[in-house]
């Protein structure tokens, strides 16, 4: 699990480092003193969990969280703040957790566990779920499709993969999207949505 920690206080870093080592995530963690640095980093790296202070110069933690989520909605947000009338703001940007300073190791660990538990939302991918209903997700968002298109997809899936019981399996298959309307399966032949 790739983690970033952003806080403008030196001592907050000292504490995070200590806890991160104890919970064995330190090697996968990058620490930043401000939002601008963190955003620069996020542009070039995958992040699973962002642990953020709220009151920070220039771009506060809530705004930082919003921008991180825009880049990659898979990033899970946990806020750590000194004094909290921010809980509501935090949940508006879909934070999964909220800690108040000073926080204990147990509380910290619980938030890590939660972050690991929350299922990863597929990114830049098309998911077709065949059971219990036939549904298509693009970038984790449900897309309604026309009856014709659905029939076509189902036919396509059946004919392309003889022997695979797509329409009966509970399996979720992963597709890789290349262009807006072109999707490719990881395996066999590419096909185009009509």
């Amino acid at each position, binding site marked *: 699990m790739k983690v970033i920690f952003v806080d*403008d*206080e*030196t*001592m*907050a870093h*000292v*504490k995070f480092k*200590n806890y991160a080592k104890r919970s064995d995530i330190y090697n996968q963690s990058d620490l930043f*003193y*401000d939002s*601008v640095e963190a955003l620069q980093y996020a542009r070039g790296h995958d992040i699973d969990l962002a642990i953020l202070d709220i*009151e920070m*110069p*220039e771009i506060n933690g809530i705004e930082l969280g919003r921008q991180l989520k825009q880049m990659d909605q898979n990033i899970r947000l946990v806020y750590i703040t*000194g*004094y909290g009338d921010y809980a509501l703001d935090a949940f508006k940007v879909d934070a999964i957790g909220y800690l*108040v*300073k*000073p*926080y204990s190791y147990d509380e910290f660990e619980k938030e890590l566990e939660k972050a690991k538990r929350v299922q990863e939302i597929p990114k830049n991918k098309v998911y077709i779920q065949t059971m219990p209903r036939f549904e298509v997700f693009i970038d984790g968002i449900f897309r309604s499709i026309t009856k014709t298109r659905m029939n076509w997809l189902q036919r396509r899936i059946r004919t392309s993969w003889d022997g695979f019981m797509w329409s009966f399996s509970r399996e979720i298959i992963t597709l890789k999207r290349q262009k807006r309307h072109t999707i490719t399966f990881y395996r066999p032949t590419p096909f185009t949505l009509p």
Partner: protein
Amino acid sequence: MHLELAETKMQMMISQIRPHFVFNTLNAISALCLENPIKADEAIVKFSKYLRANIAVMEGPRLISFKKEVELIENYVSIEQMRFQGKISIEYDIGFTDFWVPMLSIQPIVENAIKHGISKKRKGGKVILKSRKENGFVVVMVKDNGIGFNVDKIKQKQDSVGMHNIETRLRISSKAQIKIESMLGKGTCVTIKIPIECDKQRRRKK
């Protein structure tokens, strides 16, 4: 009597310890406990000093020598420097100390300069605390190179309640005049002018 009542009321309003500061400091101390117990010990002593002064003010208004107020400022600033290492610097340019001020009346101005001024800047900044004797007045100046603010706009904000209280307190107890100048991106300067005559009368009464 009337004055004293007014002063007590102001005292009650002003002595609001900032919870954000309290909990962030406790978090910093908890970090030190894990990594450096000797520094943690020092930090607890400093933080207690801060709390003790703030609680003392809550119990009733009092005048203290400017020297003592500067000690409270030094103590407070060293806690902030512990929290934000390398980001906060302060310069003392104390040319005159022989006067009295309401306890914790200058310290919150320094606290404002740090909280709203320089800690909001990515690279931090500097506060200068000056005191001078100038034709019948004591002039105390708190100047920072923080983010600054729009003086007209801030008057409507809740944060300015604290500043308003400090102004009222200094006016009632020391007949002080306060001037606040600020420029966005440049910093803020708070100037307090206390007439020396008034200061002497106050002390005689004590």
